[in-house]
């Protein structure tokens, strides 16, 4: 279960080398995304996560907003 975090924690984790994952569709990711974020749309995340992500580093996922 993922732990909810706020922006300042995201920035701290980024500074520590966390992997930032944008789960929005590719077109939205292309328009803008957090610096250094990779795109793993929700429909692909289960299939691609193990291939794309490093299991030894923290992972932060995000989308547009909680709404």
């Amino acid at each position, binding site marked *: 279960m993922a732990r909810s*975090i706020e*922006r300042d924690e995201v920035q701290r984790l980024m500074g520590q080398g*966390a992997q930032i994952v944008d789960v929005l569709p590719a077109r939205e990711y*292309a328009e803008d995304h*957090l610096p250094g974020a990779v795109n793993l749309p929700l429909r692909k995340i289960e299939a691609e996560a193990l291939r794309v992500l490093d299991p030894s580093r*923290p992972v932060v996922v995000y989308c547009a*907003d909680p709404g």
Partner: protein
Amino acid sequence: MYDYRTGILDWKTAGLPVEGTSAQQPRLVDVVRRDVPTCSLGERLGDVRDRAAAAGWDACVVVSDGHVVLGLLRAAELRGDQDQLVDQAMRPGPSTYRPFVPVAELRGIMSDRHLESSPVTTSDGRLVGLVRRQDVGLP
């Protein structure tokens, strides 16, 4: 694993940098004037006008104790009855815009509606600053 629940909208509202094709266009965070004077509802209009003028402004944003935007005093309002209180003179509930809105978008809005200025706020209504016509390239 961590979930940044408030997501990229929260990130952009804070004025933090993003990457991507739209990241190159200027946004309100790049032009907003954070030094706009502020005042509270119970202040005397004349005192506010004098303070704004001393700071080189002909506008003032009315905010709550928590810095939430309540209204706007543009040049016309500041010229009103100097003994009025701010809450009687102000334009309540102005349209506000987020820091990540493209400058071009607000330029169109301000042009169409003949606006002198527009407050920029966070998603919970707290003042970031004021954008004037000249800040978005309008005469």
